[in-house]
């Protein structure tokens, strides 16, 4: 369904020295640098898969999504999505996929979401019965029936993202590309969107390619994940295996009810410490026991346990590869 071979994308970037003299110089002597955002990238995705793309900022995830949706043209290499060369931007190709980018809205802010859905119904030539059936299905999944006729600009970020997803899926696309769909959303909205995407993938068989900074999204949704770093693929395989092997610890943050002299448990690594707060890394497999012990041992006003950051996981994979 999706195939790339030695896919490469190089951007040309305008560069100038700081200050007024730099600006004037650049008028007469423009300098450019070249940045390879994606390099010799091979990828094959089959119908019905739910694949996560992970990597730090600037790794090349969004570039890959833009290439797969035809928004930008590759510099070199092979690319085929649903049998099409994406950058030809044929309507028959665009009818079969959808893309949701967390920071680029398709909704008309002055109007209601229902108005945008009607536009999409015509743009994608969706038969009236299919449109109604899909709309009912997605609206009930998100339970947003009472928000359909509310002006989009007055919706919360989470509500707006739900509407973006509904708009994207009304025409029953075979592939859905999601670029950071949960960015900036609270935990509840993130969970709702995760459940929604799981249902869409399972019930409708939609192939989903998801980029996300949130570990939880990738862990709970994607059986397979691809890790990208500096434009190169450094891991492609089982998500469970990736986290078992490379997610070595979790971050525990304790907020004390009163100034406390804290003693770091064995095997942990301190991040921040003062009489009222302490943050440290705990070994992944013993996080739960350590957290319970902390709650028994100290008078706490709050405790948080966070997953390893994606950047750390990527760094470990990278270092591991370099050491092989």
């Amino acid at each position, binding site marked *: 369904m999706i195939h790339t071979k030695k896919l490469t994308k190089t*951007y040309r970037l305008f560069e100038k020295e700081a200050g007024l003299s730099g600006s004037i110089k650049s008028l007469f002597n423009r300098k450019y640098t070249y940045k390879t955002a994606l390099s010799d990238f091979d990828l094959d995705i089959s119908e019905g898969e739910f694949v996560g793309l992970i990597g730090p900022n600037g790794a090349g995830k969004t570039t890959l999504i*833009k290439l797969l*949706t*035809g*928004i*930008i*043209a590759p510099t070199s290499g092979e690319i085929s999505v649903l049998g099409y060369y994406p*950058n030809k*931007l044929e*309507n028959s190709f*665009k*009818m079969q996929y*959808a*893309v949701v*980018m967390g*920071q*680029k*809205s*398709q909704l*008309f802010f*002055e*109007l209601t979401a229902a*108005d*945008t859905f*009607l*536009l999409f*119904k*015509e*743009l*994608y*030539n969706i038969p009236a019965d299919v449109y109604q059936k899909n709309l009912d299905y997605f609206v009930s999944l998100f339970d947003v029936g009472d928000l359909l006729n509310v*002006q989009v600009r007055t919706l919360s970020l989470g509500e707006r993202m739900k509407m973006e997803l509904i708009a994207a899926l009304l025409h029953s696309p075979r592939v859905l590309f999601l670029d950071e769909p949960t960015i900036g959303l609270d935990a509840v909205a993130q969970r709702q969107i995760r459940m929604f995407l799981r249902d869409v993938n399972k019930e409708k068989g939609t192939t989903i390619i998801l980029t996300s900074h949130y570990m939880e999204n990738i862990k709970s949704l994607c059986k397979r994940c691809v890790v990208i770093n500096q434009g190169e693929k450094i891991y492609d395989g089982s998500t469970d295996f990736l986290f078992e092997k490379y997610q070595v610890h979790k971050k525990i943050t304790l907020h004390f009810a009163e100034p406390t002299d804290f003693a770091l448990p064995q095997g942990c690594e301190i991040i921040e410490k003062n009489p009222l707060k302490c943050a440290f890394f705990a070994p992944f497999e013993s996080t739960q026991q350590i957290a319970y012990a902390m709650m028994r041992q100290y008078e706490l006003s709050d405790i948080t346990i966070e997953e390893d950051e994606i950047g750390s996981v990527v760094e470990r994979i990278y270092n591991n590869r370099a050491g092989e």
Partner: protein
Amino acid sequence: MNKYLEVAKISFKAQIVYIFDVCIAAVYMVTKILFAYVLWGAVFRENETVAGFTYPAMFTYYIFSSFLSQIELSGNVSEEISSSIRRGTFSKFMVIPAGTQTYFIAQTFGVMLFYLVFILAASVAWTVLFRARFMMTSNPVLILEAIIMIILGLVFMIQLNYFLGILAFKYLDISAFLMIKSNVVAFITGSLVPLSLLPDAVITVMRIFPFYYVTYLPSMLLIGKNTEEALTGIIVLSAWFLLFTVLNKIAYNKLRVIYDGVGI
């Protein structure tokens, strides 16, 4: 076709949301009429005709040309395209199954329709209220020719602005192109001065270009003047329309491949 009708509808709906804009647009048009009433009233106090125009003919010409230049909103197209290319949000037009040029034509017509309804209502109310002396042709063929010319002219102007807008793929900042265009168009379309006041040689050259037929000639036809130029006007505008249809298709396909989609 339905999809573009829906694009026009959604643009129209988006305009209605801002009721203050409706009022300002109507007041602006009324102010223009008032200005014409006072200005041309003063000029014609001493003369029966000026450059072959009687007072009612000049007043009517001014009303029509002002009205047409006000509903000619194609400038928004180049602004929207260039800013969305610079901000990296143009991708939203690339991923939907619709032709981008036709999408922008439909979108602009939706906005035009909104202005057409409200400004026309304000203009008619004003002229009736002040019993302004109006001199419009009653010849249905001339009116039809003028309407065809107006539609072709408006579409052409959108095409021109679409072309300038997509130049942002290459140049990013197209404000210099837009400034030159708006000054040239304001003069050549006759929205500042009736073109018949200009030397014949200048008008002959202008007849090759489409701008002459966008505001000036339809306004003249509607007051029953320059009738012999109607067919030529439609042919010239059609030729420019076809030329830009092809040019924009080629330019878009050539330029969009250098789009990086970076911005936000």
